[in-house]
Structures are given as structure tokens and as C-alpha cells.
């Protein structure tokens, strides 16, 4: 039988496990910060490259149909909107401030969850529809010169891919994301109740 004082002295005199040194950790934290920034930078650069590609198409290629130009503009607009929303999301994630009290942290998580629900709902449908219309209009003229069978196959592949992303992949991603955030919120709610006891 041990009393609490004995447990306490056991804690204080416990053998120290070998730990990472401050210098090694410093290297890792710097690398970690850079990789986060790099990830964001890569995504933004990819969006920018697509945007530039559309501008090049618009300026240096002559298309016969106004539908193609409309397609290019719609696609460019959608990409721009997506890039802005992506940046906003990044800001939301970054604002999950671990330095605040548990209650404030919980409040921020709830706000984030609401924001994501809004984004993953109607907004994502609007995005998918706009992108489909833009690319669809663009494809009309591009595919006009290819054999009919290839044209039909290309349209099927395009529609199939957009439907797969919008109705299957999207739901799966949203479900996983909501589950994760929901679990954190549940645990924090439980903790809040425990402190109230």
C-alpha cells in the first residue's frame, strides 16, 4: 500500500527517458513551418498556373465560337473563386489557436465546423456546376474536329468524372472531415462538463 506522498516522490525521482535535444527539435520545427507554407504555396502556384494557361488560351488561340470564350471565362472565374476560398480555409485552419483556453478553443472549433458545413454544402455544388459548365462549353469546339465516337466518349468521360467527384468523392471527404472535427468537439464538450463538476 502506498500513499499519495509516495506516489509523488516516485514521480519526482522517476528515471528520465532520453529525449530529443533542443537543436534537433529546432531544426524540425523550422522544417515543419516551412513545409506548411510550401504546401500552401504549391497549391496557390498550381491555381495560378491554371489561370495563366487559360489566359494564354484566350490571348493566343483563335476560337470560332463565342461559347468557347464563355467557357474560358467561366472556368477562370471559378478557379479564382476557388483559390480565394482555399486561402480563406487555410486562414480558418491556422486560426485554430492552441494557445487559448479550452473553452475558447472549443468555440473556435465550432465556428470552423459551421464554416466548413456552409462551404461543403451549396457552395461546393455551385463550384462543381460552374466548373462543369465552363469546361463543357470549352470542350464543344475542341471536340468538334474529332470523330463522333471519340467526341461522345470524351463527353461521357467528362460527365462521369464530374459526377464522381461531386456525388461520391465529395461526400466521402466531407464525411471524414466532419467526423474528425465532431470527435474533437465531443471530447472538448466532455472536458468542459468535467471542469464544471
Amino acid at each position: 500500500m502506498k500513499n499519495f506522498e509516495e506516489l509523488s516522490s516516485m514521480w519526482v525521482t522517476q528515471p528520465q527517458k532520453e529525449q530529443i535535444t533542443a537543436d534537433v527539435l529546432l531544426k524540425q520545427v523550422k522544417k515543419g513551418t516551412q513545409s506548411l507554407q510550401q504546401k500552401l504555396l504549391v497549391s496557390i502556384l498550381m491555381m495560378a498556373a491554371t489561370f495563366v494557361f487559360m489566359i494564354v488560351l484566350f490571348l493566343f488561340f483563335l476560337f470560332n465560337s463565342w461559347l468557347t470564350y464563355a467557357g474560358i471565362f467561366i472556368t477562370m472565374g471559378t478557379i479564382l473563386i476557388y483559390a480565394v476560398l482555399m486561402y480563406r480555409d487555410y486562414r480558418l485552419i491556422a486560426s485554430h489557436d492552441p494557445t487559448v483556453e479550452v473553452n475558447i478553443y472549443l468555440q473556435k472549433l465550432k465556428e470552423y465546423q459551421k464554416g466548413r458545413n456552409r462551404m461543403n454544402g451549396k457552395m461546393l455544388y455551385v463550384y462543381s456546376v460552374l466548373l462543369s459548365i465552363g469546361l463543357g462549353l470549352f470542350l464543344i469546339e475542341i471536340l468538334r474536329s474529332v470523330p463522333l465516337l471519340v467526341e461522345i466518349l470524351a463527353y461521357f468521360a467528362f460527365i462521369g468524372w464530374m459526377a464522381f467527384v461531386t456525388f461520391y468523392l465529395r461526400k466521402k471527404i466531407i464525411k471524414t472531415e466532419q467526423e474528425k472535427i465532431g470527435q474533437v468537439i465531443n471530447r472538448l464538450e466532455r472536458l468542459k462538463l468535467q471542469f464544471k463538476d
Partner: protein
Amino acid sequence: MKTKDSAFREIFEANSKRIYRLCYSYTADSAAANDLMQETFLKVWQNLDKFRNQSMISTWIYRIAVNTCLTYLRSEKRQAKDELTPFIAENEPEEVSGKKEEVDLLYQCIAKLEESERIIITMVLDEVPYPEIAEISGISEGNLRVKIHRIKSKLTELYNHYEKL
């Protein structure tokens, strides 16, 4: 004027052991505790410019560690084990091995407490002053004293129960 690097080094040296113990009490797994400790200090590094001395730096770091541990616990698979596992202490002198077993058992008993109890008791064991514990956990000092008394009894009971097995 101190650079950010040297300030970080000092903070790490002064707090890493306590933070590791807190993380270990959440996970009962040394690899996971190390990961959580590193994640905590990554956040410390990222937010160091935000720290404005409104509270003690150790209070601030504890708060980051607690939030990091709670976020980590979101995955059911990652929760501390329900069953107390037998300890393996091969090739160690009997005295060292015995002490290690005792400490391991203590950690596993802490891991069986509620989250709020784990936060509080690891700070009590690390001799963090009561006003600081109250600030980190966000409860009044009076309420805290009652809670600490209850947690101490619960932990001692748990320890003695499993020690007999």
C-alpha cells in the same frame, strides 16, 4: 536582445520534461508522447511572437500541450489502452526494473483518469503552484482544491488496486 532561436532553446530546456510527462500520462505510450511533445513545441515556435507575458510562459505552454493532447485523442484508436498491459523489463538490474515498473504503473493509472483529472494531477505531481493550475484549467482555486483532494484519493486507490494484481 535574445534571438527567437535562443529563447526557444531556453523554453524547451526548462519545460520539455514536464510536457513530455503530461503527454505520456495522456497516451501511456512513449512514442506517441514524444510526437505530442514535439507537436506542442512546434506550436510554441509558431506562436512565440504572440506570447505577450500576460501569463507565465509555462502556463501558456501547458495550455498548448493540453489542447494538443485533446486534439490527438480524437481518434478512438489512439486512446489510452483500457487494459493494463504486463510490463517487460528484460536485461535491467532488479532495482531499476522494479522502479520502472512502479513508474509505468503510475502512468497507466493516470491514463485511466478522466481528461480533466489527468491535466490537474500531472501538474500537481510536477509541483505547479495552485494559482497556475487554476489558470490553465479555467476553474476557481477553491473548486480546484476540492478537486485535487478527490483526484489524489482516486489515483492512490487505483494504484494500490493494480499493484496488488
